[in-house]
């Protein structure tokens, strides 16, 4: 606990256990890791403080993730939209990415993470960004324009059930339900 970090109150811990999919150990570990992100003098009031996005992204679990910005944005409750996170946001994140979260809630958040423009559907632009995240932005790995078009068309053909040109949440969850690997790969453990 680093000596200076304050302990979580017992009742609060119970409440977190009730509201998230995390176990007691996981919450305590999250608390420890989160307080390490705060400067020493702020550790006493961990529940009130927000950690800026740049600090959150120094966590080794998120540092290399190509979707790090989206993850911060989706889980942050910041008023300014800067992706900063409170401890409870952080717990929300871990809860969704935990082992015991249902694949329903996982797919829900995955959809939000992939919905780059936050408009509630995955359209062509979202898919393009998604594929770019998957292949990396480097010149040699990036897909050419025609490849991208072909790929997105294939994706839409397979998953756009009602043929409206976008993938909505239900369609996305339908795709997810057919790939059993998703639940095990959509996971971040501290």
């Amino acid at each position: 606990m680093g000596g200076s970090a304050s302990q979580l109150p017992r009742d609060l811990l119970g409440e977190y256990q009730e509201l998230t999919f995390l176990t007691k150990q996981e919450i305590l570990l999250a608390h420890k890791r989160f307080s390490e992100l705060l400067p020493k003098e702020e550790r006493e009031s961990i529940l009130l403080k927000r950690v800026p996005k740049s600090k959150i992204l120094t966590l080794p679990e998120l540092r290399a993730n190509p979707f790090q910005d989206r993850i911060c944005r989706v889980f942050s409750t910041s008023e300014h939209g800067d992706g900063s996170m409170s401890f409870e946001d952080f717990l929300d994140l871990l809860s969704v990415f935990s082992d015991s979260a249902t694949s329903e809630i996982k797919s829900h958040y995955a959809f939000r993470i992939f919905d780059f423009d936050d408009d509630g559907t995955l359209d062509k632009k979202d898919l393009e960004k998604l594929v770019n995240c998957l292949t990396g932005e480097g010149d040699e790995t990036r897909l050419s324009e025609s490849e991208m078009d072909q790929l997105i068309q294939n994706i839409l053909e397979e998953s756009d059930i009602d043929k409206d040109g976008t993938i909505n949440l239900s369609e996305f969850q339908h795709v997810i339900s057919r790939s059993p690997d998703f639940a095990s790969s959509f996971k971040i453990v501290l």
Partner: protein
Amino acid sequence: MSYHYNEAFENPDYHYSETLEIDRSKERNSSFQQNLHDSSLHDDSYDSYEGHSGRGQRNQDYPMAIPMSSMQPGFRYSHSTSRSAVPNTNPYGNPHTNPSFEYEPELAYTSPSTFHAMDGPYVRRSSDMSDGGSFSQRYNRRQADLVYRMPSSLLRLDSNAETYNEDKHKQEKLIKNLASMSSRERIKAIQKTPKTMKEKRDIRNKVLMEKTKKSVSYSTQINCCTQCLYKTALSYRRFKSGLSEYFHLLQLWQKTLKVIGGKFGTSVLSYFVFLKWLLTFNIFSFLVNFSFITIPQLIASGPNNLTFNGLELLTGAGYFKKTVLYYGFYTNSTITKAENNSSYNMQLAYIFTIGIYFIICFFSLVYSMAKSFHKNFINPQTYAGSAAKLLCIWDFNITNEKAVKLKQSNLSTQIKESLSEVTLEVLNLSLKQKIARITVHLVAWVASLGTAAACCAGVYFLSRNNLQLLEGNKSELEKEAATLVLPIVVSLLNLLIPFCFALFGLIEKFQYPRHELYVTVIRNIFLKISIIGILCYYWLNDVATSEEECWESLVGQDIYRLIVIDFIFCLLGSFFGEFVRRIIGTKCCKKLGVPEFDIARNVLDLIYTQTLAWIGIFFAPLMPAMQIISFFIIFYVKKVSLMRNCQPPRKVWRASQMTTLFIFLLFFPSFTGVLSVMGVTIWRRTPSKQCGPFQGLTSVIDAVSGWIHILDSYSSSKWVVWIYRNLIGSVHFFFILTVIVLIITYLYWQIIEGRKIMVRLLHEQIINEGKDKMFLLNKLRALQTSKLDPSKGEQQERSSSLYQPSRQAALQMTASLERPFGRNGRDYYAESSSAGIPEKIGLSPADAEGHQPAISETLALALRARQQAEWEMEDDDDEDFRP
């Protein structure tokens, strides 16, 4: 950006169909237009505006309030309520309730102009800023549908109070719903809501308040008994959570597994998880055997006076012969402690411990297999293409920066390859090529099966010769060294033949890499299991009938040697296969590159040793201890070798499906084979006369029947006798059991078939819905262009979005039409619920409730759209409707 909108309009089916022409002519009829506008299309979207504006407003006025309505569809169990509730709670069910609707029918069209591109329901909105951001996260299934319905500043004042009431009503309903659940269900339900912590806490507090309210009124009725029950339940729960915490600490290798997953992804991780799973099996069996068989024997055994030299560790003979390791050391007597006269029957302990262990193994294997199948093969049809897989392909476990880069480039090449493959596959193979391909496959199969058969024959003759060699008179050391020949040959075969099979795989050109993988796995498992099978035949047929002093111990020694030598080869394999290979790959021959971790081969090795260990349990009860040690070492060696030498696999490995396959392989040839070997040993073979717990009996099972015979004389244990005679010992019982199981299987199979048909029908239904939607969108746009042309300039001025105004309206339409799918889509797949159909078909009429004059026309429109869609469907191939 306007891609899908344009597509709808360029769809020739809609432009050039006859019905559309008719519709177009009808469009000119202004009354129709008005009706259309007034009824079904309008009010639904209108409703949701309100939902939104109300919410935005409420957020400023009542920061604590939460839109419970939006939560309902998130719960599976509240589907029924939400289904019935939504149409009824439509505030425009009665048009008079909203004056703004009466005055300004066009409002619905003009208001979307305040739409902001970034103004999704779950991004922070300027109106939400005052609310500490609790609102910014709001997004759930229903809201996904509401997404384009933006708050209209004009409407907000009119409707917010009303919508607030409505939301509040829904919220109360939901809280009541939650309050009526058991606390466990409630916690689960709240956990499942995709909301921020603050909102979840609010919901929970409200529910708890509701509960306390109720409990105050009930408090007089609570009597002592329920209180007592409640207390025990509470303490039980506390005990359970405490226990789970404790077990959490016990979890082995958590950190290591995380590191492996972080660098190599889920696929390689699955090997280590499998290893860990087998290890727990062995730890369990070790504990059982040690406590019920070994400890009593240790109490009774005398001193061991054989000398120990190092070679025993390899051969398992010599000193070990007279230890608890082997069957031969155990006595057949009952062990009695003089003080309290309690006795321990070694025969029964031996047979029951091993029997019960196998039964537990059987059920846990069946259970994990069924669970795995249920999870991974639940969908009868999987996508032929893999493009959609991209949506969920990213492995969030990977945290290593280099690994991420590598994974990205791998994905990129994969995508490029698959795209080029799609174009290649269009070229059909000629007949000649097909025949050539099939012949190559056939030859490869014959060759691999022949190799396996040859290996088996070789092993059999070698082992027979070895037996004779043992009987000849040579020095003790030479004898012991000679015993090592057989296991070394077997291990060599196990190591080298798979490489041969891999070569076959290079010659055969499989269309899909998946097929190649499956074929290689099947060939390898065939080889390994047939080698074990021939060894078992040799043990039961030659060793058991030979005049050896203690044949069970000999078999135990053989198995010991096989396991030890295989373990050594496994270590050598990872040294040469991975370490030396990496040196060659990086230093001498750059083209080879760094090796990949061969998951299939390694898992098959594990299955092989586990099979041996299971067979060995009867002949050497402490075999699991060996297995534990060897798995421990293998885990660390493999981990180090993996970290130092290997690179993450290039191909996508369908980890969960392969794990299912491996569990199945562990069950089917492996475990069932072990059971049959056990069966033969226990029922058909005579145990050796001078050693072991069963000496002097004609077969092992006689111990049990003798015991039953003794029990027969005690009246208090008649039921045991009855169970034995009528259930376990009777053929009829098993016959009836088999028939029942077969009937149930058939029933389930039929249910699955029915579900498949249902899924197909519903899929067609969804496509029809989509076509309906497109058609109505077309209509709406046509209508709008004719109507809104004059006000276009003004609108664009007001709009801060990138969208064209017509698109906004269209999107709004999309959202409103999408709602049934959004709400019920899950049910269609999860439950194949038939209840969904009537509602979907009745979409327009249901929404038009209260607009009596408009119904007929709307219905007509919807029906026409459906009809048209159906005509189209008949023209298309069936393929379009299959995933």
